[in-house]
Every structure is written in structure tokens, then in C-alpha cells.
């Protein structure tokens, strides 16, 4: 397992475009948004969250779009399949590495930008935790979409995975409101964490079944 982790981490680290690209786009979006409204920036701290949430959604999609396609194209997925290695472990490792290298930095960027735009310092960690659990859910959902639509383009990927991701956005919006108004934070966080952990355990099973179907 450790070997697998270091192997996947090594692979991702050398694909600079795959992990640094999404993070830079996130920063760019979060900088561009305040510039696109008028200079008085009335109520910016209220609206700023929604742009963080939406950019989290879009960039999670972007980041996982090619999570399996490169391995599929260069034949390494087929090799794993033929060697009858545990597909579940490979998928789980891949998603974990992506969350670690892209998801968590994304959440960090999101919470830092919300701090810079007027969220109190003691609430910033709360935002970070919420965003981290949301990326856990979103990365799993979008990896599933990317596994289904492997090398068939983004349109199919969006159509199949967006319906599953939209309820998460509603939940995320609600979680952020609890931080803003200071009530029911733990309840919503437990719900997010519960959904996230269940998905993190179950999704790799479904994704490996999907990938096997592609390879059969």
C-alpha cells in the first residue's frame, strides 16, 4: 500500500499541469471575482462564499477530469487488470493522492481567501474543515464521472456527474451559512463528514467496477 502511495504521488508530482493547474485557476478565479464587481464591494464578504463554493465545484471537476485517462491510454490500467492486482486499492490510492495534493491545498486557498475577505480568524478553520470534506465528496463523485466517460470528453463527464454533485453544493452552502450565523455547525459538519467518509469507502468499489467494464 505504501509503495502504491509513493508510486502514485510520484506520478502526480511529475504531471505538473495536473495538480498545479487547478490550484492556479482557483487562485485566479478568487482574485478575479472581487475585481469584477464595483469598487464599493458592498456585501462582498457575503457573496464571496458562493464564488468559493462554485470554484470548488468547477475546479474539482477539472482536477479529476484526467485522473484515469492517462493510465488508460498508456496501458497501465490494463496491465493492472491483467495482473489481477486489487483494483480497489489502486483507485483508492489514486483518489487519496489527488485529494492530498489538490483537494486539501484547494480548501486551504479557499479558506485563506475567505479570511482575506472579512471572515473572522477563529472561523477560518471551520471554513477549511467544511471545504476539505466537500472536496472529499466532490473528488469521489467526479472521479466516478471521469471513470464512466473515460476518453469521451468533458461534456459526458459533466452530464453524468453534475447531478450527483449538485446536492453536495446545497449542503455546502448550508454549512457555510451555519458558520456565518453561528448555529448548527457541528450537525451539518457531521452530515458532510458522514457522507464524505461513506463515499470515500464505497466510490472506489464502483469506480473499479466501471474501469473493469472499460477494459473487458
Amino acid at each position, binding site marked *: 500500500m505504501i509503495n502504491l502511495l509513493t508510486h502514485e504521488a510520484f506520478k502526480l508530482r511529475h504531471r505538473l499541469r495536473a495538480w498545479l493547474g487547478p490550484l492556479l485557476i482557483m487562485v485566479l478565479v478568487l482574485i478575479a471575482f472581487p475585481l469584477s464587481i464595483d469598487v464599493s464591494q458592498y456585501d462582498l464578504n457575503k457573496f464571496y462564499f458562493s464564488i468559493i463554493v462554485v470554484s470548488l465545484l468547477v475546479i474539482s471537476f477539472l482536477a479529476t477530469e484526467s485522473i484515469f485517462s492517462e493510465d488508460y491510454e498508456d496501458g497501465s490500467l490494463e496491465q493492472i487488470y491483467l495482473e489481477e492486482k486489487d483494483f480497489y486499492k489502486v483507485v483508492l490510492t489514486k483518489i487519496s493522492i489527488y485529494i492530498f495534493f489538490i483537494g486539501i491545498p484547494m480548501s486551504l486557498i479557499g479558506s485563506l481567501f475567505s479570511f482575506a475577505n472579512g471572515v473572522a480568524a477563529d472561523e477560518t478553520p471551520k471554513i477549511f474543515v467544511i471545504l476539505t470534506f466537500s472536496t472529499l465528496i466532490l473528488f469521489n463523485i467526479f472521479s466516478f464521472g471521469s471513470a464512466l466517460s473515460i476518453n469521451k470528453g468533458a461534456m459526458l463527464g459533466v452530464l*453524468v456527474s453534475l*447531478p450527483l454533485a449538485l446536492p453536495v453544493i*446545497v449542503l455546502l452552502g448550508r454549512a457555510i451559512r451555519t458558520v456565518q450565523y453561528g448555529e448548527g455547525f457541528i450537525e451539518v459538519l457531521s452530515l458532510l463528514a458522514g457522507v464524505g467518509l461513506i463515499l470515500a469507502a464505497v466510490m472506489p468499489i464502483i469506480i473499479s467496477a466501471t474501469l473493469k467494464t472499460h477494459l473487458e
Partner: protein
Amino acid sequence: MITSFIHRFSSPKSFVEVTARFFSYVMYLGLFLLATGWIWGLAFAPEDAIQGNSYRIIFLHVPASIFAQLIYFFMAVCALMHLVWRVKLAAYLIKSSAPVGALITFIALFSGSIWGIPTWGTWWQWDARITSTLILFIMYLGIITLHSSFSNAEKADRLMSILVVVGVVNIPIIKKSVDWWSTLHQPASITISEAPSIDLSMLYPLLISISGMGLTLIALGILISKLYIITREKTKKWVQNYV
């Protein structure tokens, strides 16, 4: 035992032959019930005290919304059958139900948004049930697109089944969303466990419209599946004998 039973009664050939026998009964009964329910609802049911005559959209909107969800549920059962027992017919039925589901979900959304104008004063609101029906509509489109993206039909069948089973988690969200999120919607008019909150003179035409809509959609589904089965199996001998 179960597997052999399922495989015996689920050959595409016997499906086409059996449904051909009662297709016209289903279609004409469905259209008759739909016409009865709608004429009763539009012309004879009393005016609603609060919503006035605009409530008459209920006789179309409620059946459409019910079947928008039921068709997905049916597809999920078929998807499980396809994944567990590899029943070919189940995959054919999913593929042919998806356009029917998309059509009726679109009708539910369309009728709902028009009904919203006189009732809520707005044609679209990001209300829980509308949003979840929209999500359901996108899911139907996703299923249709996914299947048509792959040239290998068997592979497409399996991928589609996986997507349908994963997507079924959205159905309880749709069902429960009214309680979870704040909503403009009136609570459901008919539930199984409680007495209906709607007057009998409105309930009867509603129930007739629901059953009429159900039968009409089943007839449409049968027709589309027949088309699809013949397309998929056109090289088989039974198809050439059948046509």
C-alpha cells in the same frame, strides 16, 4: 433456480411477442382514462378556493411528476437485474425508458413552472422540489448521452446500469427534499399513510389521470423498447421471422 427462471422469461423475443398481444389494450385504455380524467378535471371539478382555476394544471402536473420519479425507480430495478444476473432485456428496458423519463420530467418541469406564474408569482424558483426534478432531468439526459457515446453496446449497457444504480440515491433526496430544505411547494396532496388533503371531487379525476398517464407511458415505453430491441437484434433469426 432464480437465475434460470429470470433468464427463461426475460428473452427479448418473448418480451416483444407478449407485449405485442396487449399493447393496443394498454394504449387505448390509457388514452381513454387520461381523456376522462382531464375532461372531468378541467370541466367538472369545482374551482379551488385559494388558487382559482389555475389549480387545474394539477391533473397533468402531479401525474407527470409521479412518473418522472417512478420511471427512474423502474430503471434502477432493471439496472440491478442487469448487473447481478446479466439480463439483457433489463438493459434494453433501461435504454428505452430513459427517453420516456426525460420527456415526462420535462413535462413536469414545464407544467410546474407555468403553474408557478399565477400561484407563486414566479415561473422559476430554486425551490427544493423543482431543483431536484431539474437534477432528475439532467440525469436522464446523462444516461441517454452515456449510452450513445460508446459504440460497443454491451459495454454501454453495463456502464449505463452502473450510472443508474449510483443515481438512485437522488430519488430519496427528491422525496425528502421538501422536508429538508425550505420550500414554496405545498405538501404532497396524496400520501399512502394519511387521508388525502384534497376534496374527493378533485381526488377522483386526479387518480384517474394518474392511472391514465401511467398506462399511456407504459404503451409508449413498450413501443420504444420494441424499436430498440429490433434494432439491437436485427441480425437474429427471430427478428427476421417476426417482422
